[in-house]
């Protein structure tokens, strides 16, 4: 439950030593802070007319969130020097200066060479070595948060499903769980299991794609081709089971919109994919020329990962074990058995291995879910009333936060979805430092942050 506090209490909380920043968002005249303290969530809000004490001074992961809050809601973070617009691009943008002998700039984007999302990367390089990378994002900012306001949960769910297309199931699930919690609405058990089935299929599909794409950026096309085939077959299985390759608009507040097709198709897919992927993993493990590219490249240190509370494969590749499916945990995962793989090296190779192990775990989870799938209805009707709640869901990138408040008519008064990319993008700036610029695509792909999910 949210506690409304005053400025002194806000400052006191910021000064506490041990806590993780999970979310920071605003609405007219109010700013919200979600912390994780010793594994417990603590949601506080501060009513403020024009400004509030900045969180960035104690948690640098808040810098971009505060710049976004300033852009969208006009609230000024007291103490944050960086007031450059983040999601609004009307003004000229001054990149941070770098001084030194023989340093030159390499501007990249917003349109990149490949088929990927837009964003600008400003490299300062000395010879081939990156001295500093500064990102500028916000190019695909559509104003999703404001656009959700006044819509029914069913209408807003279509927007939640399009926050980041590759995480459509996870974002839809976070939104649905937040709305259901706000209304105190239970979801039928079958829907709970079907949601997890879709979420794990999404995780597997994305990880297949990433493992292949990372190897491709290390010029190893064989694994890329093999993984592209596995990804395509995963999407076709999803299409056969739920009628959409990405399973968009299948998870909605109240349940799911489509029951499972023939479950044997999924069992056959798992039986075929498992040995084929094992073969690919053996090739990855066995190629020194590939390992030469991925080992010790793009290292994120554990201290930094902890400071940014970065989740997903970025965190777990550097020793940070957090997984929202375990903590705070949500059904049906509390009744399923799975491991959260953790590696220590924090390099591209470790991020590949986290994905490899997660694919294996998710394939096991899919089998468990099929074995235990309860019968019954797949959706419940939602009451129309006011409420406020948040939900945390583990997407393939990491922990997704969604907070929602409904008005008396049960419509969206305010919604804030926070993609895991917010806390991963800044770490990419740190990871590339001291690497050669030619390794940037490799590092970037191993992070695979969402532009759309971040820009909203």
């Amino acid at each position, binding site marked *: 439950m949210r506690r409304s506090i005053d400025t002194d209490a806000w400052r006191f909380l910021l000064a506490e030593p041990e806590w993780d920043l999970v979310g920071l968002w605003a609405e007219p005249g109010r700013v919200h802070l979600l912390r994780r303290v010793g594994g417990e969530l603590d949601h506080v809000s501060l009513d403020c007319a024009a400004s509030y004490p900045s969180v960035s001074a104690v948690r640098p992961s808040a810098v971009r969130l505060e710049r976004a809050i300033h852009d969208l809601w006009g609230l000024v973070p007291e103490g944050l020097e960086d007031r450059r617009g983040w*999601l609004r*691009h009307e003004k000229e943008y001054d990149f941070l200066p770098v001084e030194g002998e023989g340093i030159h700039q390499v501007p990249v984007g*917003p*349109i990149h*060479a*490949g*088929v*990927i*999302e*837009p964003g600008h990367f400003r490299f300062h390089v000395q010879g081939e070595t990156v001295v500093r990378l500064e990102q500028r994002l*916000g*190019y*695909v*900012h*559509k*104003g*999703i948060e*404001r*656009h959700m306001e006044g819509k029914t949960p069913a209408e807003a769910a*279509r*927007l939640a499903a*399009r*926050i*980041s*297309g*590759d995480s*459509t199931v996870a974002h839809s699930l976070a939104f649905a769980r937040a709305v259901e919690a706000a209304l105190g609405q239970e979801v039928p058990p079958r829907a709970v299991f079907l949601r997890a089935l879709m979420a794990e299929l999404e995780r597997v599909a994305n990880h297949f*794609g990433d493992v292949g794409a990372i190897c491709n950026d290390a010029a190893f096309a*064989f694994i890329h*081709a*093999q993984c*592209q*085939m596995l*990804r*395509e077959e995963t*999407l076709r299985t999803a299409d056969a089971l739920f009628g959409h*390759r*990405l399973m*968009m608009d299948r998870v909605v507040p109240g349940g799911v919109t489509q029951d499972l097709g023939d479950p044997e198709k999924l069992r056959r897919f798992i039986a075929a994919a498992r040995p084929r992927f094992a*073969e690919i993993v053996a*090739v990855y493990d*066995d190629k020194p020329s590939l390992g030469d590219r991925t080992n010790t490249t793009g290292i994120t240190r554990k201290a930094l990962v902890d400071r940014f509370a970065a989740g997903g494969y970025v965190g777990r590749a550097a020793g940070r074990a957090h997984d929202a499916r375990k903590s705070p945990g949500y059904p049906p995962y509390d009744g399923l058995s799975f491991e959260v793989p953790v590696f220590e090296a924090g390099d591209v190779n470790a991020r590949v291995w986290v994905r490899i192990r997660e694919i294996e775990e998710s394939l096991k989870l899919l089998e468990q879910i099929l074995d235990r799938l309860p019968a019954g209805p797949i959706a419940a009707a939602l009451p129309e009333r006011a409420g406020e709640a948040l939900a945390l869901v583990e997407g393939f990138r990491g922990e997704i936060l969604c907070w929602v408040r409904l008005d008396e008519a049960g419509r969206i008064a305010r919604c804030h979805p926070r993609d895991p990319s917010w806390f991963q993008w800044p770490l990419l700036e740190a990871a590339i430092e001291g690497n050669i610029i030619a390794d940037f695509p490799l590092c970037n792909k191993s992070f695979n942050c*969402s*532009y*759309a999910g971040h820009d909203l």
Partner: protein
Amino acid sequence: MWQRVVRNLIGGPATEAGPKPDDEALAELAARLDGAARARLGRSLAIREVDAGSCNGCELEVNALSGPHYDLERFGLRFVASPRHADVLLVTGPVTRNMRHALLRAYAATPSPKWVVAAGDCAANCGVFAGAEGVVGRVADVIPVDLHIAGCPPSPRQLLAGLLALIETSGRSSAAGVASK
């Protein structure tokens, strides 16, 4: 690895037969393009993809076209890194305020004759983002569009059927151009 390579060689390709060119796309193109422009493009098209505000769902499916199942390049279609090398801009998403300028510059940098394909429902009519404050409009509100491919996101087969209509149209007209000389 080599066993897999040998098995793949013996087992035949994973690549599937392509779809037929999309009829609606053919009709849209026939109405839109004059014979001279078509004749100059021939049967090979270089495509520059531009995400003008998409949720990245379209990018996932566009990327799938390069995989073994679809193998886009066998049709003479390929993705290029620069708009200066492109015949076709394949644009996704509603156009955001922050991407409008970059889209205009990419269009200006693409040499004529050029075609613009608006892929996905957002590119065609802003989709669920219609009216959002960061969105300036559909692709056709910013640059001239020659072909629309529907879907949210369009599947790789839908994308392929639309792009094959481009090839088909240009191929037929260049044959006609030769015959008339």
